[in-house]
């Protein structure tokens, strides 16, 4: 079974044979995955299956042991060539700036206001003048519905508002691909909708995304393709209609989805 998207030429994100272990525990056992430009790929699967680890490797928040991750043809984390040498700190930073990441626990900078959270990367990484960075921050915070909260500290915002700042901080850097790791699972149920709406909006505008979620309904609505990950491998993949419609005969997927029966 192929999990590759045949329609695209060179995919924006191309993962081949990705392996990763934490000490004795192998977490990724040879993951192959492509994400084309403008595509939204959702990763679902049981807890401990390696979804978070996969995203963290793509942003090189974790090193990986074997295989290759390429964004726009450039190897993530390691220098090209036969010897597997880590890139320089400066090079790593440059590449990480090309991928946006939104975290489950928001990870906003608590000492900075909403606007300053968004501005930090623009000023220090993109070298934009303060005024321009501020204008970009205001634009994106308005886009996520936080025009009134520009100068509030994270501690003065609700969880849903904090996570929307997290999204603004990531997209303001104009990343090639946005990585979202269960961005609503730390939120009260009534705050989930406001955050997912922002993501749906971004998807409709053509933002390339790799999304880990437990919100099956959302996965169905937002994705071009859904990937089911279990035990460090991609066990099934396909368009949401096929994957959720029972067209794909994978026992683990069936068992996993049956837990969400009511919501699919």
């Amino acid at each position, binding site marked *: 079974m192929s999990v590759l998207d045949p329609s695209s030429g060179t995919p924006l994100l191309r993962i081949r044979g990705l392996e990763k272990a934490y000490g004795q525990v192998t977490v990724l056992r040879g993951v192959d995955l492509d994400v084309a430009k403008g595509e939204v790929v959702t990763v679902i699967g049981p807890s401990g299956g390696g979804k978070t680890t996969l995203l*963290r490797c793509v*942003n*090189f*928040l974790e090193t990986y042991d074997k295989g290759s991750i390429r964004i726009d043809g450039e190897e993530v984390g390691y220098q090209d060539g036969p010897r597997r040498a880590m890139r320089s*700190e*400066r090079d*790593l*930073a*440059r590449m*990480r*700036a*090309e*991928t*946006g*990441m939104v*975290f489950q*626990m928001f*990870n*906003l*900078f*608590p*000492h900075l206001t909403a606007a300053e959270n968004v501005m*930090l*990367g623009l000023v*220090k*990484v993109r070298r934009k003048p303060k005024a321009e960075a501020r204008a970009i921050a205001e634009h994106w915070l308005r886009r996520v519905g936080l025009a009134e909260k520009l100068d509030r*500290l994270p*501690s003065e915002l609700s969880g849903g508002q904090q996570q929307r700042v997290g999204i603004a*901080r*990531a997209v303001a*850097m104009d990343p090639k691909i946005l990585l979202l790791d269960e961005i609503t699972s730390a939120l009260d149920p009534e705050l989930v909708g406001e955050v997912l709406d922002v993501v749906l909006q971004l998807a409709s505008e053509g933002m390339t995304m790799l999304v880990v979620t437990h919100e099956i309904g959302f996965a169905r609505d937002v994705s071009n393709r859904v990937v089911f990950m279990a035990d460090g491998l991609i066990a099934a993949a396909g368009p949401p209609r096929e994957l959720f419609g029972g067209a794909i005969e994978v026992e683990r997927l069936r068992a996993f989805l049956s837990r969400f029966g009511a919501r699919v």
Partner: protein
Amino acid sequence: MLAAILYAIPFLMQGLLTTIVVSLLVVVLSTAIGGLMGIGLVYGPAPVRWLVRGFSDIVRGIPILVLIFFIYYGLPIAGLNLQPFSAAVLALTVFKSAQVIENVRGAIGSIPRGQMDAGKAVGLTFAQRLAYVIAPQAIRRFLPPWINGVTDAVKGSALVSLLGVTDLMHAMQQVIGRTYNALPLYVLGAIIYFVINYGLSALSRMLERRFSYIRE
């Protein structure tokens, strides 16, 4: 009594100046050295971490008095001769650096791991993450124990009198040696030390308020 105090004041001021210079040197040097070593302890590769950990554990396990005598009388055996003043400053700096290392470790350790991740994800380099993400958050936890340590350094600087350096403490003893009138001098000396350290504590509380922007 008043006459004794008036007579003593010029001598004490001279000694006080030395006390302040020693304290300042020790605080500045130990903060720089201990700060760097503390960062090495938290983020450095394994050999650096072991070295710093070993240094800190050993130094903190030795009484400061032993450290002073070791550096003044011990190092010449190894061919390194230090003036009393330098030896005293070096000993106090080594001692205080070990404390600063632990202050830094504690302060950085209190910051959630996700902060470093978020800084990386935005594209900040290690130095930028330290400067703009970690340090502004760590400073709040770093300051109270650090200022405590500064008052310790001021008090500890009295130990340089043991090597014959004329600091405030030594000046007091010299005046007492001449006037045979100990009590007013010790009272006066205690007041001076108290004023300095009370000032530092007040400064500490002010700084803590200044950096209390993070509510938990």
